[in-house]
């Protein structure tokens, strides 16, 4: 695992002095689905790793109200990776790679509130890891798309995948190669376009839902 403190010679890539708006997108997926690979392929900085300390008592409790428990209860530490994309002189987008399994979800609730949306990165060898993440995102009302990281394994059509994941027909499903910068960039673009569609629908409730199927 990369150490957060050993920077390469020359130091960090700095943000513009006028940068004033941080944005978040969360990439979720099971172990080995390619979350860090995707972050790495589009990040302008080497993906960094940081961690959060919290108590088991913190599950489901909003914000920092629970951390008093740290004095009397055992703390747990959870690590997550992140990368950065400077969008323009003012906006900077942070990508967070988060484990999708149930036992990590308390981390999401606390740390990733206010995220623009999420990408569920699916590895067809471990579909079960995606089910829980999709359920939770739907429950939370967090907009998301699903991206199939294609490792060149047994071929699945997107229709087969959609069925296997029991995915709502309106949720975009795209194929990507997380190692490829353009491909990863297109995943993020697909998410933001989906958000824009959702926003347009929200503001004009009379219009019918627009089914989406992104091109591979």
């Amino acid at each position, binding site marked *: *695992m990369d*150490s*957060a*403190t050993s*920077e390469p010679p020359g130091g*960090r890539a*700095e*943000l*513009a*002095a006028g*940068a*004033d*708006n*941080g*944005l*978040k997108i969360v990439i979720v997926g099971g172990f080995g689905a390619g979350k860090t690979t995707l972050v790495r392929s589009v990040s302008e900085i080497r993906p*960094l*790793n*940081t*961690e*959060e*300390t919290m108590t088991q008592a913190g599950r489901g409790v909003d*914000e*920092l109200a629970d*951390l008093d428990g*740290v*004095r009397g209860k055992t*703390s*747990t*530490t959870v*690590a997550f990776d*992140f990368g*950065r*994309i400077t*969008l*323009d002189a003012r*906006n*900077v*987008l*942070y990508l*967070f790679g988060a484990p999708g399994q149930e036992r990590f979800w308390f981390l999401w609730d606390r*740390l990733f*509130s*206010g*995220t*623009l949306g999420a990408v569920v990165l699916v590895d067809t060898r471990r579909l079960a890891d995606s089910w829980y993440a999709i359920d939770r995102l739907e429950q*939370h*009302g*967090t*907009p998301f798309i699903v991206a199939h990281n294609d490792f060149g394994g047994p071929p699945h059509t997107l229709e087969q995948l959609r069925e296997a994941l029991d995915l709502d027909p309106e949720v975009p499903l795209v194929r990507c190669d997380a190692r490829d910068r353009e491909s990863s*960039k297109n995943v*993020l*673009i697909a998410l*933001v*376009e989906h*958000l*824009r569609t*959702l*926003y*347009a629908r929200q503001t004009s409730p009379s219009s019918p839902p627009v089914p989406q199927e992104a091109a591979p």
Partner: protein
Amino acid sequence: MSRPGRDDAPDRLYTLTGGRSRPAADVSFDLVSLVVAESDPAPGMPSEHAAILRMCARPTAVVEVAAELGLPVSIVRVLLSDLLVQGRIGARHPRSAASPHRLPDPDILEQVLVGLRNL
């Protein structure tokens, strides 16, 4: 996943904050709030404070500060709130994170799309 010497006893990290686990100021630092130093490091100041001021000569996100210091985000939030109360840093909070269940503003989405397409 563990880092020797740290993950084995996370509680002792709170010695850095004088045992406090929540920020002093009535502010909430988002993971992506951008921190900007308003003053130079002063002699005798805690080394973490000095490191933050050096790091934040240019805007730096809370999560980057945490990664650079090798400290958990919750600890860094306490350190940042101390510096904010002292007027040594400023914070630029995200404009789109007001509510977890509200869709982001279309203007922001457009700016994000343009930025991504220009990559």
